[in-house]
């Protein structure tokens, strides 16, 4: 009886603990053409809901079917699941044929070997490498390697500002330097209204913003040999500058520190905050009832007189399209990539989603001539830098994003934020990077 209960408890315990880490066995086969009539496509969530994405994409997939006779099975996957799904697909070898990836994951996923490399011959099949924007191609894999994906939708960060609130505070022009931004922010902050809204609980937003600030201070968070340099003086200065919005400048509401469900966009749209740094927020603001005439978009501030990397005002944001190496319909998959990156589809899809085309020829279309998109297109061409394209990029995103989140949390709780506390947090993040 006793041994029985013990062994039952052992089994229960063991089962609970280890089911979490269990996955299937991996396959190592390459692509083939054994199932040429169907494709599975994992799309990322670009629209206002998963349902909305289906409505946007289905008609286009029908067009593709009419042209080629290939039926595309669409699955729209929320961002919170996408990376885990891709990892599971990689580990099991059971994945889609074509999939969307966040472009910052490119190098990390490239390192797993799960994605089809786009070499010269592959690029030729989809219409050539030259059709794509250089900055977008640069964020599709590690430098010196064949890209693991091709850019599909492009986005960039801009500084959105509320024209009415600026006018009411007597500010004539949007800020062009950080000093101006902080100064304006202070003028705009009173009562429960704040100068700027940030998404402090969102790890990705944090890392995107401190990356831009890092570039301006002269660090990409990795040294020339690809080793992490998270706690360099430049990185500390960059992170502190961001955290100071809450800690010292007090131009962002302390409550921002726990925002992780796009509350900052809501705050901006409802006039609770006068500025917002966001990528392609137009469609999102519209859904909150904000009129495009009520806000302006300018590049994110940079240090006065900065040039080159120090004039970076945004990461190269965007979505890439990749082909799973294990696909059973290689030709069909490439055909589909060609279709989705054609000038025609690029105009339609980016026009609907409020993002920018990744192919040069589609950029000049009238749909992208709004002031917002023209500003963002300018940023993408002139002052956007890709996040570090290194295999450990996804670890970097998580660790630095979390470190900034922790710092913002302690700033919001009224604890002092100094260079020492920032450096301490960043050192901790760096120590958790895998040694290699």
């Amino acid at each position: 009886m006793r041994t029985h209960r013990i062994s039952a408890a052992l089994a229960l315990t063991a089962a609970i603990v280890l089911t979490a880490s269990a996955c299937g066995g991996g396959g190592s086969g390459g692509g083939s053409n054994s199932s040429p009539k169907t494709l599975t496509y994992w799309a990322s969530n670009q629209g206002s809901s998963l349902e909305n994405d289906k409505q946007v994409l289905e008609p286009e997939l029908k067009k593709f079917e009419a042209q080629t006779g290939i039926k595309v099975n669409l699955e729209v996957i929320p961002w919170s699941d996408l990376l885990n799904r891709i990892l599971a697909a990689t580990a099991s070898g059971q994945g889609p044929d074509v999939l969307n990836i966040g472009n910052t994951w490119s190098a990390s996923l490239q390192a797993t070997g799960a994605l089809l490399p786009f070499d010269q011959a592959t690029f030729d099949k989809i219409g050539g490498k030259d059709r794509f924007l250089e900055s977008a191609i640069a964020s599709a894999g590690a430098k010196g390697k064949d890209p693991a994906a091709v850019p599909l939708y492009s986005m960039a960060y801009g500084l959105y500002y509320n024209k009415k609130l600026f006018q009411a505070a007597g500010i004539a022009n949007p800020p062009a330097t950080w000093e101006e931004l902080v100064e304006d922010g202070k003028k705009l902050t009173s009562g429960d209204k704040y100068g700027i809204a940030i998404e402090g609980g969102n790890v990705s937003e944090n890392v995107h913003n401190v990356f831009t600030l890092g570039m301006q201070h002269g660090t990409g968070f990795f040294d020339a040999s690809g080793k992490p340099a998270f706690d360099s003086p430049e990185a500390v200065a960059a992170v502190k500058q961001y955290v100071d919005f809450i800690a010292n400048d007090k131009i962002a509401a302390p409550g921002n520190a726990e925002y992780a469900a796009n509350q900052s966009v809501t705050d901006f749209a409802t006039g609770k905050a006068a500025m917002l740094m966001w990528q392609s927020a137009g469609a999102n603001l519209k859904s909150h009832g904000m009129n495009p005439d009520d806000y302006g978009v300018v590049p994110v501030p940079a240090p006065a007189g900065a040039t080159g990397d120090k004039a970076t005002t945004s990461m190269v944001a965007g979505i890439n399209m990749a082909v799973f190496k294990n696909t059973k319909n290689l030709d069909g998959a490439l055909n589909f990539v060609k279709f989705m990156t054609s000038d025609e589809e690029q105009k339609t899809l980016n026009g609907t989603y409020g993002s920018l085309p990744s192919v040069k020829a589609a950029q000049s279309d009238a749909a992208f001539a709004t002031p917002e998109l023209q500003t963002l297109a300018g940023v993408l061409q002139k002052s956007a830098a890709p996040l570090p394209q290194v295999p450990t990029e996804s670890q970097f995103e998580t660790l630095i994003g979390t470190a900034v989140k922790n710092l913002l949390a302690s700033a919001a709780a009224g604890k002092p934020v100094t260079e020492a506390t920032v450096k301490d947090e960043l050192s901790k993040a760096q120590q958790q990077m895998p040694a290699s």
Partner: protein
Amino acid sequence: MSEKVIDRQTVGKEAAPKGAAPARRRLRDKFGRSALPYLLLLPALLAELLIHLVPMVTGIVMAFKQLTQFFIRDWGSAPWSGFDNFKVALEFNAPVGKALLHSFWVTCGFTVLSVGLSWLIGVTASIFTQDAFRGRGLLRAAFMLPYALPVFAAVITWSFMFQRDTGLINHVLHDQLHLTSDKPFWLIGDNSFWALLTVSVWKSWPFAFLTLTAGLQNIPRELYEAAALDGAGVWQQIRRITLPSLRPVNLVLVLVLFLWTFNDFNTPFVLFGKSAPQAADLISIHIYQSSFITWNFGQGSAMSVLLLLFLLLVTAVYLFATNRRRGEAE
């Protein structure tokens, strides 16, 4: 008890055919009879093997491999790393080990408080609802509500309530009751521990309540009547009759609650998302971060194996200690 009964039955049956049938038939009979239960168990056993044992063994094997993003596509090619993953996890002066140890202590404190409070509330509520009164059924049903709700829906509601600026908790504490000078954060920073504890207790005490209510039904009424005649007050009745009678139920209940709470993943994950605040960094979330987010599955598995060993140890000690004490009592 039950073992003895079974023994007596088999003895009786074996005694009957003795001498009557040839020895070979008796052997086959005996074999056929004893094999049948095992045959019936076989499907369950296979399923158990497939669902529990295989992933477990896989997980243990993974712990000895350097299974990073470079190798997940083809596990076989991942190099063996011996005890390296364990060494990293157990080196408490280095960052990874230190963080794991911190997470371990947080989890221990959290589990003790959560199980203790759940049990206390459960036992109180079950004793109060023991005697019949108008609306008792309704109240019992209401108590069971948290247990019946889907975890995700319940916890996401809590996360809305805990929001600093728009949440219900701060509205009541700060705006209505003026208990705090400033609106506190619940989902980030040090308070997150208490937020997590609140949700966890809310979620698990109905189970304690249910189990203990069932246990109470087995206590004979006469015991209380006799005690009342002897002049025992309510408090004495609870201490001398109710609690000792509930002991067998409590033994199992506390163990199960302990295992569930210690391993709880859903609550912190839904409440805080992928990166839990330091103060509420439960071990299951920590392991998830170490494997899924940093893509180091070998490391995550090693931590899981360590957790498994710890829980096995606790369970074994617990069962050993409680069984021995019961033996002494008898």
